[in-house]
């Protein structure tokens, strides 16, 4: 989708912060993803216009970064760390459990991620970039269910406050 009027104003403010407009590609892609739930081709075209580059350049940049989802994903993004500290404290079992449990649930996308810089509380995961630590498969499932049932308020898909 194209930027809403409010977001278009925000987008222009963001571009103005930088000595060169192209520097605004990452922040604008976050803004678009917040609005639409994923990074659409249309949004990348609009970002290209706002930053004075071609749509291919925007896509070239955005496709490099794991946080940009270039196809629709669930409204809850569960990112489970399995890097070494989480590996030796139970991360892979959490990933396996959640992947099976929410495999055919369109609201929930479970992904494996690299170290989240939360190893002091390993095993760790994020739900829409909100941290949760010292988990077991059971606690993790209860947590995701809490978000699903509205007992917890999630951030947006790009991690902003609602």
């Amino acid at each position, binding site marked *: 989708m194209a930027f809403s009027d409010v977001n278009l104003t925000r987008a222009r403010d963001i571009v103005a912060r930088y000595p060169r407009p192209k*520097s605004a590609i990452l*922040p604008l892609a976050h803004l678009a993803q917040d609005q639409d739930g994923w990074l659409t081709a249309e949004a990348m075209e609009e970002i290209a216009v706002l930053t004075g580059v071609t749509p291919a350049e925007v896509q070239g940049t955005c496709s*490099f970064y794991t946080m940009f989802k270039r196809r629709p994903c669930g409204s809850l993004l569960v990112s489970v760390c399995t*890097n070494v500290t989480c*590996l030796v404290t139970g991360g892979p079992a959490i990933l396996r459990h959640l992947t099976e449990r929410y495999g055919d649930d369109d609201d929930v996308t479970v992904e494996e991620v690299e170290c989240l810089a*939360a190893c002091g509380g390993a095993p760790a995961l994020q739900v829409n970039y909100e941290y949760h630590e010292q988990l077991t498969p059971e606690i993790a499932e209860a947590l995701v269910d809490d978000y699903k049932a509205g007992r917890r308020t999630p951030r947006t898909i790009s991690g902003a406050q609602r």
Partner: protein
Amino acid sequence: MAVTETRIVTNRLREFTEDSWTIDRYLATGGYDMLRQALTMQPVQIQDEQVKASGLRGRGGAGFGTGQKWSFLPKGIYPRYLAVNGDEGEPSTFKDHMLIERDPHQIIEGVVISAFAIEAHIAFIYVRGEFALGIERLEQAVADAYAKGFIGKNILGSGFDLEVVVHRGAGAYIAGDETGLLSSLEGERAMPRIKPPFPAVQGLYAKPTVVNNVETMSTVPHILRMGGEEYAKLGVGRSTGTRIFSVSGHVARPGNYEVELGITFRQLIDELAGGVRGGKQMKFFIPGGASAPWLMPEHLDAPLDMDYVGSELKTMLGSGAIMVFDEDTNPALIAWRLLKFFAHESCGKCTPCREGSMWLEKVLFRISHGLGRPQDLDMMLSFGSTIVPGLNAPFSQTTICAMGPSTMSAVVSLDRFFREEILEMCNAGAARPTIPVTSA
């Protein structure tokens, strides 16, 4: 006597856990006093008499002298930029995450003082995209600092102007490399650039740029408060001051510990972090993040001294992440997971790193899952020497950035300390069919 933490950079966030990140708490605990003082000094005075005299070395991983780096800025070329590295992606490092979430004003004060000292008028704070709460608090802190006149035009009536922009990353470990960070800030893929020219000479938008880590910036106000020479009395040799170490893995009390440099690994791991948990023995530990070669229990009495660890132990304190593994750990599995990380995060620009990390991951996968072949370890060392010629620390490299040689740290460590164990695993693996036959 039992060792204790020396809390300089982490003092506020440990003492005021409920509101250490707010402007009110920061001002109530002496915040921005050092900025006032700095603005009455000459930039070169701050560089030489404070930062250089303190002996401060970068806390991001490479440990380069901060004052020295600033002095490389070519005279008379403007604009200059300050880029602060808060990308923290090195596995098992979680100190900058804490500093950003819990003491953002301390970073900002360090940034304004440093920008004044290097005569920069725009500073970018590049924060790892996944730190949603940290970015929220840092952005709030920047807004509050603008409102109070600590950032913006004519700061505190000094005539010095500075804009501070919080730039959010989007998930790429390589954006933590200083030149990858600059590419990313320019709106490109975060691909590192060849040095020289170093960023101090040609950095952001090809202008002179200083890149410094979040912890480095957080230390600057304290250097002014204590005085550079006084700060330099802390620590050992050329490793002055304190550092925050992130201790994780099989320890009783994982977490961040700020200690004076020069205490031993044993004091940090056993006394502060509570030692190996569950009454087990330590098998090995990794002293400086995923990129660092490993160490064994026999090295525990070595000092946390950047030079000693480099020259005597052939590894590094790196990003200050210490991972501890107990006696039941399969070292091949740890090596495989680290290579899976590197293979995923290699930006693809240099062939040795891109292809090397991918093949190392595949071979380590089969070794760690019981399907290794007897020649596997030597094969990895053989093709690894095309990434790290000679395989000798300090590592040389055939790649643009230091990630290339990092991919070989785990493999070299397996060969140094676990060769017999790996060969045994591989021989057992070779006795089985190479392609596992599974029944449906």
